[in-house]
């Protein structure tokens, strides 16, 4: 009965109580066209949906600026150094090894200090003791050097300053792996810390190293990620276990914490990933990557294999070991699993159909380019429409609001409804855009779902169009007014009303998509069996049908699923065959 509960939820949001359905609330329904009633209805809904949004947008994350990150990192480092009474650089090495988790460092250290020291390369005393030699032979260039030209880390292996500098420089150029640099002696695991880097590296190398260190603090920590917006240098800390992945960065970019694509609620990450991949699959670049590389199964960075065996190790910090052929973890490749080198896992997986999915998709993409284009165009135009709306919102906030305030003699605080309208437009364009990706992947054979989805989408879209038009066109005349216009209050009522109505449509749409259009199953049952046990289904369709006449702008989909019923063109209610007008909306058959 889950779906019934959902239904009630949905109803609450729309502020439709049960009376509405029992037919006693006719006035609600019939007076829909009147703006005033609309507004009342909206007020009601507003109260509820505010609760709803508050719950939704409860901040379960913190945006970190670079100085915040450095501050936190510094606090962790000094904290660990203090508690364990070790030098700062040792604390850095330790924290990095344990992915910057202070508690893990403490746990490991206090349970077995020696083991930790060994694993991390923090030696308690030198391995090689130097008697009072005046000259040393460098272990890299094999030249003899005066004592003052020789350096070593905790282990005591002597290398000359020039070779050290080259060694450090090579490793920094190689990438973030330099954070786990060890003594050059192959048998020695002594860590080379930042103190050594600072002594020997060039200025730009030091900067790079410290940048890697900062990045590591965000990237190795499971609770933090960088904001994926280009050029944005903020990071986000996300509280585990919170629901909803949408994150709004200070740079105003909204993204999904889970997949770091831009925010795409209500569409799930998998669909978005496929869609984005599909969109870019057209480009040459992506074709090359697909043909010549594979993503690391763990960190997803594309990897090009140029030589060597199938035992792949991803570059640090990922270091995931996997099989190039089947992309499975290398640890799974043993005699235990029957996974010999020829990698029968690949064959087995292919037989099981795990690979067919991708191939089938490729095939389908070729055959249904037209279908794809349909969805893509709408996706893309909502995208650009959203960009435009964002710019308009900005323009409104910075320029027009002032002008309007003067022209209409309204304090700016009284004009908040315009900003809210624009924010709503921006948000709706985003949702609408992603519903096209959703629609593309909605299976053809699920007719009922598809119809219901397209219905909701159509409703939402036409609501949004009206709102957008009102905010864009009708507002302009008030900007040019010489004196305050008497119509302005009407405009306020209208725009605020449209904003709320549109918000409701979209909440509806979002909710329906988030529960996988599960209302439809009961709806299908209803129109076929009409046992009216599933009151909820007709509610759902009624809820949408109350669309203030826009339903008629959509192609009527008069379905007569079976001989005993006909569905109403206007509200889709499944009426008994004997009825000549719709039982719900009195629309004639």
């Amino acid at each position: 009965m889950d779906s019934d509960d959902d239904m009630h939820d949905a109803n609450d949001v729309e502020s439709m109580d049960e009376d509405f359905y029992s037919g006693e609330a006719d006035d609600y329904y019939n007076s829909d066209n009147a703006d005033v009633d609309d507004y009342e209805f909206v007020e009601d809904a507003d109260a509820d949906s505010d609760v709803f949004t508050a719950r939704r947008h409860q901040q379960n994350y913190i945006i970190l600026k670079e100085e915040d990150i450095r501050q936190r990192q510094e606090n962790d480092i000094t904290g660990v150094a203090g508690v364990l009474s070790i030098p700062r650089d040792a604390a850095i090495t330790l924290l990095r090894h344990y992915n910057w988790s202070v508690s893990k460092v403490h746990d490991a250290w206090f349970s077995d200090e020696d083991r930790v020291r060994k694993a991390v390369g923090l030696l308690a005393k030198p391995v090689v003791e130097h008697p009072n030699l005046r000259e040393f032979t460098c272990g890299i260039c094999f030249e003899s050097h005066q004592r003052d030209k020789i350096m070593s880390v905790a282990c005591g292996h002597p290398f000359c300053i020039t070779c050290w500098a080259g060694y450090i420089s090579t490793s920094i150029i190689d990438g973030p792996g330099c954070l786990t640099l060890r003594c050059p002696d192959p048998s020695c695991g002594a860590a080379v810390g930042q103190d050594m880097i600072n002594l020997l590296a060039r200025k730009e190398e030091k900067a790079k190293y410290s940048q890697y260190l900062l990045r590591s603090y965000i990237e190795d920590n499971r609770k933090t990620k960088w904001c994926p917006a280009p050029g944005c240098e903020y990071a986000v800390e996300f509280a585990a276990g919170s629901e909803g992945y949408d994150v709004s960065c200070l740079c105003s970019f909204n993204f999904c914490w889970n997949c770091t694509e831009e925010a795409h609620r209500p569409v799930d990450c998998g669909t978005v990933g496929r869609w984005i991949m599909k969109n870019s699959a057209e480009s040459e670049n992506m074709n090359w990557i697909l043909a010549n590389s594979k993503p690391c199964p763990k960190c997803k960075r594309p990897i090009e294999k140029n030589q060597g065996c199938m035992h792949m190790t991803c570059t640090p910090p990922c270091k995931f070991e996997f099989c190039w052929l089947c992309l499975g973890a290398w640890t799974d490749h043993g005699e235990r699993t029957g996974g010999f080198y020829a990698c029968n896992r690949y064959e087995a997986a292919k037989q099981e159909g795990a690979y067919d999915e991708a191939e089938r998709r490729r095939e389908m993409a070729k055959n249904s380019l037209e279908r794809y284009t349909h969805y893509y165009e709408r996706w893309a135009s909502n995208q650009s429409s959203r960009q435009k709306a964002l710019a308009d919102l900005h323009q409104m906030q910075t320029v027009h609001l002032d002008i309007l305030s003067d022209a209409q003699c309204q304090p700016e605080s009284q004009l908040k409804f315009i900003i809210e309208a624009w924010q709503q437009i921006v948000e709706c364009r985003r949702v609408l855009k992603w519903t096209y990706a959703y629609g593309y992947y909605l299976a053809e054979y699920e007719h009922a779902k598809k119809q219901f989805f397209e219905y909701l989408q159509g409703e939402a879209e036409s609501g949004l169009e009206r709102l957008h038009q009102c905010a864009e066109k009708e507002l302009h005349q008030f900007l040019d007014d010489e004196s305050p216009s008497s119509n302005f209050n009407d405009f306020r009522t209208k725009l605020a009303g449209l904003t709320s109505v549109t918000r409701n449509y979209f909440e509806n749409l979002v909710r329906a998509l988030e529960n996988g259009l599960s209302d439809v199953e009961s709806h299908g049952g209803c129109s076929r069996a009409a046992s009216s046990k599933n009151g909820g289904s007709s509610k759902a369709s009624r809820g949408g049908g109350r669309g203030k006449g826009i339903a008629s702008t959509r192609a009527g989909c008069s379905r007569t699923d079976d001989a005993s019923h006909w569905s109403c063109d206007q509200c889709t209610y499944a009426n008994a065959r004997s009825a000549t007008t719709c039982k719900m909306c009195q629309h004639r058959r």
Partner: protein
Amino acid sequence: MQTSRARLFKEYKEVQREKGADPDIQLVCDDSNIFKWTALIKGPSETPFEGGVFQLAFAIPEQYPLQPPQVRFLTKIFHPNVHFKTGEICLDILKNAWSPAWTLQSVCRAIIALMAHPEPDSPLNCDSGNLLRSGDVRGYQSMARMYTRLAAMPKKG
């Protein structure tokens, strides 16, 4: 460039001085190019490579010793970690585990050790690796011995 040349020259002198110290390895520098070396290594005893002499080719990058030398077998060898056609070697110290403290001599020693202790879990020669992984040590050894006889031993008669 200059550092690598100096370092290689050091190694060259060391090789001259220690000639015969390690009877299993004979490192020779190319007459005209100090960045090209060849080595003859003896197959370790109690392995299917015993009695064979294998030739290795070294191509040394300018960043040596900060970058590892490129080494491959010139002599055909049946070994899980050596590419059967190209002679390419899959050995961690020649890739990401390289340290500038290694020398050409120690690389040779590591390769000899690899011959005695194949790593069938990361094979370049799949057939060879599969024989070992399926536990057919005898099959592996006889194949390896056959190729040692064919390619790494003086022809009799």
